[in-house]
Structure formats: C-alpha cells, structure tokens
C-alpha cells in the first residue's frame, strides 16, 4: 500500500475542510451548485499496489510498457522509421490503387527516388476484399477504387515486380488489409514465394484477418460467422506449421471505435474477439505460448478526451495480462502483453471536414499522449483525411514533422508511463478495468464473442452508443469546433495547398484494364486444371477439420481467381448477410 492509514485520515480531514471552506466559498461566489472541475487525491487510490497494478516497464502487467526500453526510443535512435515518424522515407504506408500495374509503378517510382521500402502495406479494392472478381457484375464502379484490384496470382506477380533483388520476399514484410479472403491472398503470397524459390520460413508479413469486427463495424464479411472462424483457424494452424515468420491476424478495435463504440466497449469487444481467436488455436491443439506470438494487434482507435484514452489503454494492458494467464494458462510473460501497432489515439472519426487544418491540432494531441504511453507518436490522421482523394504530401509532411517535434523537441518519449501513480489516472484506470471486465463477463455468458457477433448484439450495442453520441452532438452537449460551435461569420476558413501523391487519372480506366487483365489470364490458363482445383476445394470445405490453405495454394498456382474460389466456398458455407 502506498499510504498508511494515519496519513489517509489526515488527507480525508483536509479534504473535508477544503470542500467546506475554499471550494464552497468559490462555488457560492459563482452561484454554482457543483464545481466544473475535479481534483483527485490519494483517497481515490487508497489500495494502490504499484507492483500489481503497474509494474516496471517490460514486466507484468506491462502497464508501464511492453519492454524495459521503449521500442520507439531504440528504433528512432537508430534513425530508422518508426510509426509515421519516417513515413516520407518509406512507402510502408497503406497504399494500393487501380490495377496491379498502377500499384507496381507507384512502388517502382518510390524506389526510383531512392527511398527504402520495408515492404508494401497493401490496400485492396472492395471486390477483392469481398471475394469477387473485377468482372463481377457487382464490382462495377468499384474496381481499383479504395485499393488495388487482385483477381489472380498474375496480379500479385505484377505488383511484386516492384519487389525484387535486395527487396525480394525474404527481405521485406508485406501487410495485407484483407479479412474475409485472407487465406486466398496468403495462398497467392505463398505461391509467389515458391515460384521465386524463396523458402516459406523466410516470409514475413501481417494480414488483418480479423473477421469478427467485419461483421460488427467494417462490413467486408463474405461467409457466415462460423465458417469464417474456421478460415481463421486455418490461418493460425497453417502459419504455425509453414509460415513461422508470418503474423496470423491483426486484432482491431479501431473500426468498432470509429463506428461509434464507447472507449470501454471498443476495448472490451476487441479483447473478447481476441479471446475467441486464441481459443481457435487452443481448440486446434496448438501450444498457446507458441501461436499467440504470431498474433498482433492493430489499434484500439480513440477519441478526443486524451486522458481517458490513456487510462483505458493502461486498463486494457492489465486486463489482457490477466486473460492470458487466467484463461489460457500462458506461462510465457511475452504473451501477456499484446503487440499493438498503436496510434490513432484521437481516432479518425473526430476529424472534421470544416476548417480541416484543425485536424492537425487534434492529431498532435493524440500523438503527444501516445508518446507518453509508449506508443509511436503517430500524428494521425493527416489533417486532410475528411476531404477525400487521399492524403496530400503537405498533410503527410506536417504530420510527420509533428511526430518529430514531439519526439525530439518536446522529448515526450523520454519517460515511460509518466502517469504511473497519478491519483486521477490510476483511479480511472481501475474503474475502466472494472468496466471492461464486466462487459467481458456479459459476453462470456452469451457464449463468447462469436455468439455475441452472430446474434447481432455487439453491433446493436455500438449503434446505440453511436446514436447517443450523435444526439449529443446535434444538441450541442458535445462540441466539435467549427462544426456545431464557433461557426459564426467572424470565423475564417483556413486552407493549405494539397499535392496528391497518386496519379488519380490512372484510376479512371483501371476497371477496364483490370477486366482485360483477368480475361487474358483466364484465356491463357489451363481451365481444366482450374476446375479440378475448385472441385477439390468444394469437397474439402465440407469437412470442417480440413485446412483449406494448401488447396488454395494449388488453385492459385493454376490461376484460379479469388472470385471463383469464394464462389465454390459460398456454395458450401453460404453467404454472409
């Protein structure tokens, strides 16, 4: 215990005197019934136990940080890119547009400028994300729009023409923002490596592959919940056996938060989803302390009340350390913390289209507080996020400079967990831990995250929160500067020039070109072999115990398309609604 009883009694008495004396006097003077301010004292964390609740950096429960020396400080010290800090020097940012040759040329161009690339972080278009080919009737107007179109292995071969030699597949890490069709994309990566003669053990990368949150908040689910989870199990077991350097999943709270989940809901639902994924590996007979090493976390998303964001993240670390030990009997403390990319501490949803440069102020707040909880000082989103058409070079420059200023001028990453022991933050952390645990218990009673997603409960809960916030915004109870307040004629619109990094013109005819690409592939491949592969996939899909990925690898090598593979799977699994 931090304080002895006698000391606490003294503080209690002093608090009473303060409340009845100076505080009451001030309230009387302003005619206020209660104070607009709060003040916290040791009385709010009477039972605070440092070793149990915080611990040293790199020791359980990892509230003060995952490592004894923060990864940000070491990586930044070496001068390599961290978070968004060096994004101008790397093309590892979320990229992908048009037909495969457009994305390839984008990367080639980046390389030609002498910029080192850690590997592509690929955004896929919606047809690819939802398991449809570019020539699908449904895909019309969507091909190459929000990411690059990938139909067959040929498309991967084209994209990765930008990654050869000292940037070949064994020297880079690829990130795929793909969920429902992860295993087909993964199969393409495996097939590409095999064709290039690169051992699978050298492949590194991360697919998003968090299907539960798709049903709740992101909307690219292809199959119903349970067969989708079977596909996730396949990723986990296949990677455990063949791709030890590949992450299997990037567990995401971000999208649920963006959808309107409260901060506690977002964390609790993410952890509930994570529990369901870990359970998949356990049920498949894998050693929890081995396969969990291949699971990463994206980000929880966030909101503008940065001190509360700090507390909820500290609470999340404590809850997860408990989950891994209590539920899964993990013995390896390295699995008691989640490896989270972090960032987006103020979220993207808080960015406004009105007076958009203000979004830089918002993002700087988030980045500063990220730095203080040991996350990268990622100044995101770039201020022009709500304007559409991608982030301008100017917005990226300002965001990256902000991160540098936070790191190198303000030196906010120097102290690990400067909030440890703060009466306010510690009491809020305790309270949020309780709230997160209460939601987890509720979900357990429903039968876990899979049931809570399948019944629609999780989505309904978030929608309710989202609607409540929207009403608060409409009524002015919650403020967005320049949106529902400070909008008078005396305010001025501030704009800066925007140079877009993409050649958007190339996106215009991407659909037509990609349909032609696909047609050519279909004409040149051995269609009989493709049909045999598809038939085998269909049969194997009916046996829940079979891992389908080796069959996908075979099929994509014959240039079966993603739409064709998902087509036969739908015949067995049904379709998500």
């Amino acid at each position, binding site marked *: 215990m931090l304080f002895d009883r006698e000391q606490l009694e003294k503080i209690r008495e002093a608090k009473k005197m303060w409340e009845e004396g100076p505080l009451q006097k001030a309230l009387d003077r302003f005619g206020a019934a209660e104070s607009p301010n709060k003040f916290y004292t040791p009385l709010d964390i009477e039972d605070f136990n440092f070793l149990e609740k915080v611990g040293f950096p790199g020791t359980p429960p990892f509230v003060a940080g995952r490592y004894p020396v923060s990864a940000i400080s070491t990586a930044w010290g070496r001068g390599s890119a961290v978070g968004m800090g060096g994004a101008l020097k790397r093309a590892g940012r979320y990229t992908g547009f048009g037909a495969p040759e457009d994305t390839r040329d984008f990367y080639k161009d980046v390389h030609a400028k002498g910029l080192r690339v850690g590997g592509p972080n690929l955004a896929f278009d*919606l047809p690819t994300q939802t398991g449809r080919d570019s020539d699908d009737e449904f895909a*019309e107007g969507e091909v190459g729009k929000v990411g690059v179109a990938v139909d067959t292995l040929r498309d991967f071969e084209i994209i990765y023409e930008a990654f050869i030699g000292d940037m070949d597949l064994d020297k880079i890490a690829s990130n795929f923002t793909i969920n429902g069709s992860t295993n087909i994309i993964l199969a393409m990566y495996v097939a590409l490596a095999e064709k290039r003669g690169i051992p699978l053990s050298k492949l590194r990368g991360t697919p998003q592959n968090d299907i539960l949150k798709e049903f709740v908040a992101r*909307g690219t689910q292809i199959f119903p919940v349970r067969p989708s989870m079977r596909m996730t199990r396949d990723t986990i077991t296949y990677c455990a056996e063949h791709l030890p350097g590949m992450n299997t999943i990037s567990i995401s709270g971000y999208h649920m938060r963006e959808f309107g989940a409260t901060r506690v809901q977002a964390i609790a639902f993410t952890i509930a989803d994570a529990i369901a994924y870990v359970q998949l590996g356990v049920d498949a007979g894998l050693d929890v302390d081995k396969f969990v090493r291949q699971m990463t976390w994206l980000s929880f998303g966030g909101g503008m009340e940065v001190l509360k964001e700090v507390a909820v993240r500290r609470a999340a670390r404590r809850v997860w350390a408990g989950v891994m030990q209590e539920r899964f009997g993990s013995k390896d403390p390295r699995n008691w913390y989640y490896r989270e990319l972090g960032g987006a501490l103020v979220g993207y949803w808080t960015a*406004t289209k009105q007076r958009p440069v203000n979004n830089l102020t918002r993002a700087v707040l988030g980045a500063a507080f990220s730095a203080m909880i040991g996350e990268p000082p990622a100044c995101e989103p770039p201020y022009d996020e709500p304007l559409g058409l991608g982030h301008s070079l100017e917005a990226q420059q300002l965001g990256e400079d902000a991160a540098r200023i936070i790191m190198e001028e303000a030196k906010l990453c120097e102290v690990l967990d400067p909030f440890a022991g703060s009466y306010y933050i510690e009491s809020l952390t305790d309270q949020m831990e309780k709230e997160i645990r209460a939601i987890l218990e509720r979900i357990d009673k429903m039968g876990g995250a899979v049931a809570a997603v399948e019944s629609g409960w999780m989505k309904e809960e978030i*929608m309710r929160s989202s609607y409540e916030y929207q009403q608060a915004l409409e009524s002015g109870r919650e403020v967005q500067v320049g949106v529902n307040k400070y909008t008078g004629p005396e305010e001025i619109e501030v704009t800066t020039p925007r140079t877009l990094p993409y050649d958007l013109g190339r996106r215009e005819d991407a659909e037509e070109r990609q349909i032609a690409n696909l047609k050519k592939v279909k004409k040149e491949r051995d269609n009989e072999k493709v049909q045999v592969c598809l038939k085998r996939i269909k049969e194997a899909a009916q046996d829940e115990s079979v891992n389908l990925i080796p069959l996908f690898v075979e099929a994509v090598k014959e240039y079966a398309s993603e739409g064709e593979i998902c087509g036969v799977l739908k015949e067995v699994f049904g379709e998500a609604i």
Partner: protein
Amino acid sequence: MDRGEKIRVLVAKAGMDGHDKGAILVATTLRDAGMETIYTGLRRTVEQIIATAIQEDVDVIGLSILSGAHLSVAQKILKRMKEEEIDDRLFVIGGVIPDEDIPKLKDMGVSAVFTQSSSFEEMVDFIRSNVKKEES
C-alpha cells in the same frame, strides 16, 4: 391508396461498401423525426434498391455511399427511377463525397447531397420541405 401522413424513406447501401454507421444513424434519426424508414442492409444492387422503393412506395430514396463509386451508382439509380416512372420521388445521397463531385451529382438529377459537414437537422428539414405528399 392511403399512404398515410408519414413520409416514407428508403435508406440504401449500394455496391460493396460495408460502412453502414451513417446509414443506420440516418435511418434512426429520420424515424425519430416521425418518418417511416426502411433500411436495405448492406450490399444491395441497384435493381434491389429500385424494387424495394417501388414495393414500399417510398417518397425518398436515400443512398449512403463511402466507397468513391457515387457517380456511377447515382447514374444507374436515376436511370432506373426514370424507367420505372418514380423519378418524381426525392433521391438524396449521403457519404464521403468530394466537394468537386457535388455539382456533378446535382446536374445528374440528385435532389441533395449530404456530407460529413451536414447536420442531421439539415437532412430532416430538407426532406420535410421537399417531399410532395398527396394529401397535404
């Protein structure tokens, strides 16, 4: 046919865009404002949207779209509305729409475009003052 006093609104998600937070919030807000709202659910085809609009005899078709495919989807819906002779109904769009596309959509015949800048109040007011109810 007595369609009642209530304004009937179809809130539709077309194409493959899975972001339906906005659509659900709009549907809930319009319902709370006293309108009958029908939400299509995710990933509907233009044909499905038109069929539902006819079947439900709606006064307003509201399309929510954030994927960037708004120009082509709007064009298709407007064409089908004309063919089915329901082009006297309001057709409004909401979503992430770049400012430069708004005049293009209006020229096509879209009644109104609502973006992140729009308040829900604006949306409700627009629908109330522009729907032509037979009785009133």
